């Protein structure tokens, strides 16, 4: 089958690789209908997650059709249209039973790697390096889905493929940021980043009762999209002092909840961006925490900062003093998709959450490298490039 493969730092190619096969009785094989680029893939492609091998298949956000089921699969049958959570959860460990699915104890098949970096290993994830289990990704014609009864969800007939696709990761990730960030009725919420996850976090905050939601980015198309489809206010950080603007819009208090949806390759307009870039390129820090710093400074006293963006390792100049002296709550997580996906599919079906607008480019697998070039450099207004394995280049 065809698949988009990582071949080295900033090198992608579309290759013919062996078809997946059932390897555990709780597996299904899914024929991929759509698989989308994600900002967190850029960290892999750029070499920031040093546990990739040439030939690894990328992609973790997808939907498709079940074409084969393992002997122990109970909830799915051949022909089912399913969206699959990007993290693999076993459903039996303490973390899965407590709805902390991305922390699953039993799905990272290389626990010794990630536990060296983090103390304990998170769960496995599709297409996200050997530190996260070494599972093949979804930018392919077929993919094996372990523990499918827990991680694959039927798509309501009224939800089209393009809309359902983002229920795999972007929508639950965004929802989790607002939910675990404790957004409550009457809150003012600020969201850093107007990519798919940031937009979904902003929408989630609105649906959870926030009175004002303010999203921050610098890309005009993304700011416009956030206003049009999400209904949030926006700030262009390239032309506006974000801290001053947030103080003015919140009566001098600062946002109650700040959600960071940017991650380790953040940009900014100031000299600290150059500082962070140099330190990151010299490997004196692995991640650029620009938006996290700004969120911590902007947040009201006693407020909450939720870190949704993907960070891999160490950061410099983290404002711990602000966290302590302002009494902030700082949380973060990879997505616990299984906790939210059925509810979110229902909300998409009811029209409460719009997702199809995120698709700005649809490509074949043969155009894998081109898709990531569009996405990474935000060319041609690209917000998400998605791959249709059935399409020809």
């Amino acid at each position, binding site marked *: 089958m065809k*698949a988009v*493969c990582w*071949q*080295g*730092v*900033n090198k992608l190619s579309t*290759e013919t*690789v*062996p078809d*997946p096969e059932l*390897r*555990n*009785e*709780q597996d299904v094989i899914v024929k991929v209908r759509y698989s989308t680029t994600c900002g967190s893939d850029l960290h892999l492609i*750029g*070499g*920031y*997650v*040093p*546990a*990739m*091998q*040439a*030939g*690894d*298949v990328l992609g973790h956000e997808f939907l498709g059709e079940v074409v084969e089921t393992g002997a*122990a699969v109970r909830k799915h049958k051949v022909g089912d249209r399913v969206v699959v959570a990007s993290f*693999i959860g*076993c*459903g*039996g*460990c*303490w973390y899965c*039973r407590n709805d902390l699915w991305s922390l699953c*104890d*039993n*799905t990272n*098949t*290389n*626990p*010794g*790697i990630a*536990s*060296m*970096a983090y*103390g*304990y*290993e998170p769960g*496995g994830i599709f297409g996200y390096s*050997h530190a996260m*289990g*070494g*599972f*093949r990704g979804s930018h392919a014609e077929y993919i*094996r889905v*372990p*523990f499918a009864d827990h991680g694959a969800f039927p798509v309501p007939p009224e939800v089209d493929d393009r809309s359902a696709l983002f229920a795999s990761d972007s929508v639950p990730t965004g929802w989790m940021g607002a939910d675990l960030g404790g957004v409550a009725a009457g809150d003012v919420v600020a969201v850093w980043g107007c990519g798919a996850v940031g937009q979904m976090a902003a929408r989630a905050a609105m649906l959870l009762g926030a009175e004002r939601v303010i999203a921050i980015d610098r890309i005009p198309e993304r700011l416009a999209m956030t206003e049009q489809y999400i209904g949030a206010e926006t700030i262009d950080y390239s032309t506006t002092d974000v801290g001053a603007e947030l103080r003015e819009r919140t009566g001098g208090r600062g946002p109650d909840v700040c959600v960071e949806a940017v991650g380790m390759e953040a940009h900014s307009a100031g000299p600290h961006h150059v500082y962070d870039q140099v330190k990151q*390129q010299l*490997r004196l820090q*692995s991640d650029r925490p620009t938006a996290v710093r700004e969120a911590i400074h902007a947040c009201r006293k006693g407020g909450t900062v939720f870190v949704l963006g993907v960070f891999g390792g160490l950061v410099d100049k983290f404002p711990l003093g602000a966290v302590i002296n302002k009494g902030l709550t700082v949380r973060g997580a990879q997505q616990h998709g299984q906790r939210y996906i059925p509810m979110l599919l229902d909300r998409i079906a009811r029209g409460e959450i719009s997702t199809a607008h995120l698709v700005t480019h649809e490509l074949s697998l043969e155009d894998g490298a081109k898709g990531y070039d569009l996405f990474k450099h935000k060319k041609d207004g690209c917000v998400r490039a998605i791959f249709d394995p059935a399409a020809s280049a």
Partner: protein
Amino acid sequence: MRWLRAGAVLGVAVAASGAVLRRHTDEDDTSRWLVVTVNAEPDAVAGDPRFTEAFAAFGDDVETRVAAAPGERGTEVAARVRQAPARATARMAGHDPRQDVRRTLRDVKSLLETGDVLRTDPPTTGKPTPGGALVRLFTRRAGGEGRL
């Protein structure tokens, strides 16, 4: 950009060697237990043949114990290797019995919690590279390493 990759790989290697050295110092006596918590009742764990048979294979080289975890978090399953810890070189070569014990603890936990031990996908056939060789070495050892 090749130096970026090399730097990243070096960073992981340094981190890994640090972890190995720390653990070697920490486990430099035979009293250290390796432990997992299984999300099941103690009676169910202690009497399950998947637990007893897995550790029976070690004979007298490994002792085990089972205790209830606090807060209804399940059962703490501990195992201890009687012989002195292996040297770092033996661990890199995969010849440390603690690696087998860690792997067995994880497998038993997974079997009791899910009925299965998850297997990853076989690698595709990418071009051999030094970085890839290092990743393959780490993945071969990863099931028997980590914080247990």
